[in-house]
């Protein structure tokens, strides 16, 4: 067992029935002085500032149980990072309530900090000029981790994240993938019961991504660590999360298991047919031809109204067929559809 006992913070939430993370009508409005173009505009802004409100989070309510792995997704500017910042206590909400492990984060920032680990993909918490291990030593002092426990978890991270080769290398000489592994270890050295990951796999190659995914999946499974993952890589979500919260314009437009969003949206299936000879403009009643490429044609059909066995029979009756496959929709396609067309399901069904 690579990890030591659960961190102290878990005791903060005495009541097991209460969700670990609760937000109620959480709002954040940024107020910024409006800028006017040109030098005169700058002067005008100096003497009679005009303020502009921008609603980043517009009444978000959600409950997250211990041990969940949440995919927190939404288009650019939807308010994901802003939500995470409020959950960490570094941003004070404009309205609404937020509670993490029984603590209101922005009121007890330091107490809350002991319960959480945070990884920001585009920002590092490591000392840029010092060897990686120096940042870990600082964290040991900050969290007051006893020496033996520190050694044990550091050894575990070195093994799991394969950090042995660059532990003594200055952080600025590390590759992005190596640095991210360092950042993961740094965020989890104190064994927090809650982990916030804000685009942690951004810019990583497929191998590094896979290593990180395997690692977080394992932490969630073996430690019961509650994880909120924000990402634009839906393969991350599909692979790791059981539940997704989809937000747009600061509002949750979907909250539920991945299967449900797939069922609601993924009524369309693709029938991929490979003919034995080149066939131009093949047709099947009840299915729409999407594309033909060489001897392969792709048909789209509605799973709810069309029976697969009938379609297969139709196509093999009409043409000489070598191979048939049915493709399930990918989460990515569904999400793209929702981003562009809007969400049509009932709002925030839990």
């Amino acid at each position, binding site marked *: 067992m690579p990890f030591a006992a659960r961190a102290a913070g878990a005791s903060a939430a005495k009541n097991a029935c209460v969700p670990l993370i609760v937000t109620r009508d959480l709002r954040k409005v940024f107020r910024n002085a409006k800028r006017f173009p040109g030098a005169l505009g700058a002067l005008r802004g100096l003497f009679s500032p005009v303020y502009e409100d921008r609603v980043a989070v517009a009444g978000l309510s959600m409950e997250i149980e211990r041990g969940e792995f949440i995919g927190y997704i939404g288009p650019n500017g939807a308010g994901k990072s802003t939500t995470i910042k409020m959950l*960490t*206590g*570094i941003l004070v909400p404009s309205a609404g309530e937020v509670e993490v492990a029984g603590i209101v984060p922005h009121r007890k920032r330091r107490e809350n*900090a*002991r319960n959480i680990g945070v990884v920001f993909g*585009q*920002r590092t918490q490591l000392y840029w000029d010092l060897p990686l291990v120096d940042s870990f030593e600082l964290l040991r002092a900050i969290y007051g981790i006893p020496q033996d426990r520190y050694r044990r978890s550091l050894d575990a991270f070195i093994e799991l994240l394969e950090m042995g080769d660059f532990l003594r290398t200055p952080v600025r000489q590390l590759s992005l993938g190596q640095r991210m592994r360092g950042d993961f270890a740094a965020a989890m050295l104190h064994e927090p019961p809650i982990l916030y990951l804000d685009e942690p796999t951004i810019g990583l190659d497929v191998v590094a991504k896979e290593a990180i995914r395997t690692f977080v999946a394992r932490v969630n499974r073996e430690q019961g660590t509650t994880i909120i993952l924000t990402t634009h890589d839906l393969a991350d979500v599909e692979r790791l999360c059981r539940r997704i919260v989809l937000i747009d314009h600061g509002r949750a437009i979907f909250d539920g298991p991945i299967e449900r969003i797939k069922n609601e949206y993924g009524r369309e299936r693709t029938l991929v047919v490979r003919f034995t000879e080149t066939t131009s403009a093949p047709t099947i009643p009840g299915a729409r031809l999407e594309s033909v490429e060489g001897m392969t044609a792709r048909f789209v059909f509605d799973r709810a109204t069309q029976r697969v066995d009938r379609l297969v029979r139709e196509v093999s009756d009409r043409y000489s067929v070598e191979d048939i496959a049915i493709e399930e929709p990918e989460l990515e396609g569904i999400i793209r559809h929702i981003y562009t067309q809007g969400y049509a399901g009932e709002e925030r069904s839990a």
Partner: protein
Amino acid sequence: MTTFAPYIEYARKAFAREATYRIELIAEIGSVVLRVYLLRSLWTALYAHNAAPTGLPLHSMITYTTVALLMSLVLEVDGTRVIREKLREGGIAVDLMKPIVVPFAYFSDGIGQTLLHAAAIVPSLLFALLLVRIDVPSLPVLAIFCCSLALGYGVNFFVNFLMNGVAFWTLETFGLQLIVRWISDLLSGQILPLSFFPGWFGRAVFALPFAAIYSTPLLVYVGIIPPAKWAAALAVQAAWLAATAGASFLLWRAASRRVVVQGG
């Protein structure tokens, strides 16, 4: 916050980090020695033409400027500059997400930097002694000088803290920074003994916190503040320390409620 361990570690890491900028430190030593030479030439020329105010003999004047330059090696460390930088880039988030009192961490970081730069005093002094001769006062004077310097260090930290803390309200503080820097260089007594300023202006500069940074320790060193006035001079410094620390505390309390973390 129950222990000092995190803050001691912050200081150690800052020391190690600064130590990686070796060239910068060497350049700093060179610059101090160069300025010692230039100011010696300047004062010698001015005194030769009797253009300088009297009351301080030439060798005391040279002692004053040389010691001031050596002091600047530690007093020019600005442990709170990171506030401004981290606010602009959003890096402050990382510090705020730790179970630490953030200003304490920055203070400790400053101490770590200072300790490394303090090491540069020794070679600077040795090189300077090749160019100038400075007076070395008696042991009690040196002891009081060190106390006064420590108080001045504290005032300097909090003045910087207040200045950089303005970034919580307006992210662009460079202009302000420049002006305050200018004023503080002149009015802290780093370049010129404040006793040179005439009339009401001369009295007014002593009523500013800047005088508590360089002037008081230096005037103790060269003996313009006699032993009878030591207690009063250090009390004024302590009062400024309390005032600037109190103001910093209030600023931080107000700021942490409105901090906006950029980026993400």
